[in-house]
């Protein structure tokens, strides 16, 4: 590496997103974004990647070096009226949440495990969300980014709520694990605190898988279905088009998962299906939005309302209860919330 960079510290294991320790990549600290741009133009593709929170665990390529970004990025700012946070990519979700809280906003739809993951690292690993999980992902909340190409040029996707300005060119960076250049900033939509429900949840037993699917279909936008630890098995759909699927499959089988057949006429047909005990699966289910998770019946479900306004949550609660009972669900009193 060049004199523009200095190796400051070696990486702790927590900062290594690679499963196999083939060697320790060096950590570099560019003096400026311009210096970073020059290095990126020189380095072979994917030899030089941004440092995130190191929580990924599924990255397959190990770069020669990682570079630190946080000292180069402006601090976070908040647009209170629009309920958005403009965040440096190196910020962890934990830190972002702390800022949001100070403004009466919240990011709590994001999984707890994200506390140590960075905004940039998450977006760099985020796929386009699959159909049923679209509202709670970091990707869905990201309404703008600023990034650097490997040529050193800069790209911004401005932070209007929605545009029709051609293809969404963020595709070049999202889910690319840093190989196409660093994400520098992201604008994230938050929710207004105080409007979140006090975890109105309803323990239920599903009579059949069809009933679960029916529930997802009817209320998919309004709620999250969380299979509870009491449930025996979980069925996962692993998308065959994801590079990490093979790795994940091995890991799951090692955890006791069993291959199973496909349930419905899903597309693409080559997807892999597994059944495995919930306890082992729970982290993994939370770990990636690329997994569809369907609880098998008879199954215990906790229905958590995502809607943020108490009257709506209450209204939905009633609706859901009636809808569910009509759809063949029964109350399950033993499941705690």
């Amino acid at each position, binding site marked *: 590496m060049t004199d523009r960079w200095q190796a400051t510290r070696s990486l702790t294991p927590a900062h290594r997103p690679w499963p196999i320790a083939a060697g320790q990549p060096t950590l570099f600290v560019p003096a400026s974004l311009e210096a970073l741009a020059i290095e990126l133009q020189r380095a072979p593709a994917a030899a030089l990647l941004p440092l995130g929170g190191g929580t990924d665990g599924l990255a397959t390529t190990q770069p020669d070096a990682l570079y630190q970004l946080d000292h180069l990025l402006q601090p976070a700012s908040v647009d209170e*009226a629009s309920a958005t946070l403009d965040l440096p990519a190196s910020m962890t979700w934990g830190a972002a949440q702390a800022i949001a809280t100070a403004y009466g906003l919240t990011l709590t739809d994001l999984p707890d495990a994200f506390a140590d993951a960075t905004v940039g690292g998450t977006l760099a690993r985020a796929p386009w969300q699959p159909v049923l999980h679209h509202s709670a992902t970091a990707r869905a909340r990201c309404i703008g980014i600023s990034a650097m190409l490997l040529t050193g040029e800069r790209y911004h996707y*401005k932070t209007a709520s929605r545009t029709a300005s051609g*293809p969404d060119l963020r595709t070049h960076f999202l889910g690319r694990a840093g190989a196409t250049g660093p994400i520098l900033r992201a604008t994230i939509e938050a929710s207004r605190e105080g409007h979140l429900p006090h975890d109105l949840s309803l323990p239920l037993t599903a009579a059949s898988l069809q009933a679960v699917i029916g529930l997802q279909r009817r209320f998919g936008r309004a709620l999250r279905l969380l299979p509870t630890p009491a449930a025996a098995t979980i069925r996962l759909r692993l998308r065959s088009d994801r590079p990490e699927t093979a790795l994940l499959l091995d890991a799951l089988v090692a955890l006791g998962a069993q291959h199973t057949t496909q349930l419905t006429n899903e597309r693409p047909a080559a997807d892999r299906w597994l059944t495995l005990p919930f306890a082992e699966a729970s982290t993994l289910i939370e770990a990636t939005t690329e997994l569809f998770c369907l609880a098998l019946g008879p199954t215990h479900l906790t229905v958590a309302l995502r809607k943020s306004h108490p009257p709506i949550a209450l209204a939905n609660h009633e609706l859901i209860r009636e809808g569910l009972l009509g759809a063949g669900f029964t109350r399950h009193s033993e499941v705690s919330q």
Partner: protein
Amino acid sequence: MAVAALVDELRASLSAEATVTASATAKLVYSRDSWPRLSLQARAGQRAISPPDLVVHAGTVADVVEVVRAAGRHSLPVVPFGAGSGVCGAAVPIKGGISLDTKRLLDLDLSRAADGLICVGAGWIGQRLEHELQRHGYTLGHFPSSIGCSTVGGYLATRSAGQYSTRFGKIEDMVVSLRFVDGEGQLRHTTEGPLDTTQLLVGSEGMLGVIVDAWLRVEPAATSGRLFRGYWCTSVSQGLEAMRRAIQAGHQPAVFRLYDPFDSFISGARKAEEGELLLPTDPQQWPRKKAPSWLPASLSPAELKPRLMTAANELLSRRPSATHWLNILASKAETGCLLIAGVEEASDEDAALLGRALFDDLGSRLQDLGPAPGEYWFAHRHDVSFKMAPILAAGMFVDTMEVSAPWHRVAALYDAVHAAVENEAFVMAHFSHAYTSGCSIYFTFAGFGADESDCLARYDRVWKAGLSAVAAFGAATTHHHGVGLLKAAWLGSDQPGGAPLFAAARREIDPAGILNPGKLWEVAP
């Protein structure tokens, strides 16, 4: 290359459902879309920018593959064409070639509708698709004003939004994946590779692939679960604040529309009584620049109505200063603003529960006008788009500009665009398509020139001034009409630095650059 030979070649290779023609009529029809500027040009006697060399109606997906391959062999552009309802010139074949009409791609797979997914051919006209879905108990939830004259392929290619977008999302929120034919004639699925490219194809305006079908989300259809309520706001700011609070509180109304004072006035929410004229009856005496001192600071609906009627008639007869005068009158209107909120859910109970929560929230801040304004809107919701023709026929120009901004900038953006264009055109607006972080403003503007070329020049100046004001605000220059030829110069404002990224995508998907060339990022700034 002889067009006749290509016509023969294609006729021999395409399916029986396909048609291939190079007739003068077809070339004329496919030389344009519904961009109002093209109507102004036609009215001025100018010829089409550039007609296609031939027009193909693909009957099957294989036909699309074959047409793109043939075009590649002959180095001819291929311009996908849905229903030509685009309002920005996106489907205009500026470099000639083949206009490829996809309206005959009418496959429909409802086998997974119960899971909330359908697979639909790109050629379906929105209205017909919606009828078909509703027959089976589902809805797509996509209701653009052009629903009767636009296709699924067109929606996807332009990032379209329907009138219920606050509840169902824009088309990009509804699409799960799609199939397209790339520039080399390969049929591809956006989720086939390691990276999902769906959102790269969405909005690509025919430049990154010919979309042949798509997996879209559907929901159970509303049968009767539809409720409306109108509210009266003292100002645009008060209305916007009520919308913002409701959306951020988690409400998701199907319809949420706030009209500015003038749009509120003409939307018929308040019936003004005829009042006596305070204005000089002779429009020749109307002021040309500023509001006269003798005009009251504000006008009641009864005072306003007759003046507006006169001014509007003068506008239609292209009286100099009529646009300016209308703007002044509009700014004097003390009518306040109309907000319409509506919920639509699959069942009456759902609608009642969600409606009650929303209406209680709004009613705690605003004056409740009951259901009538919303029901009136619903009954006439497609009318306004079709009122352009008489205005164009009267020798004027008219168009709409839909932009979007974060909440904290919406009101100021409204003022800025107004100020930027009011010397050239009469302008009014409504606010709709609300999201947690912002909403869109839909401006309608109209004016005229001394003659046809002045009219065109003025029309161009309005767009330039309006969009420059939007860009200066850092807001989005297009919310749902797409880019086309009209807004390409502002792409760099919405996605600064996007040119090399688009070029890279183009090289990968369409290396020879034959798909709708010369649009989006390929328009010289």
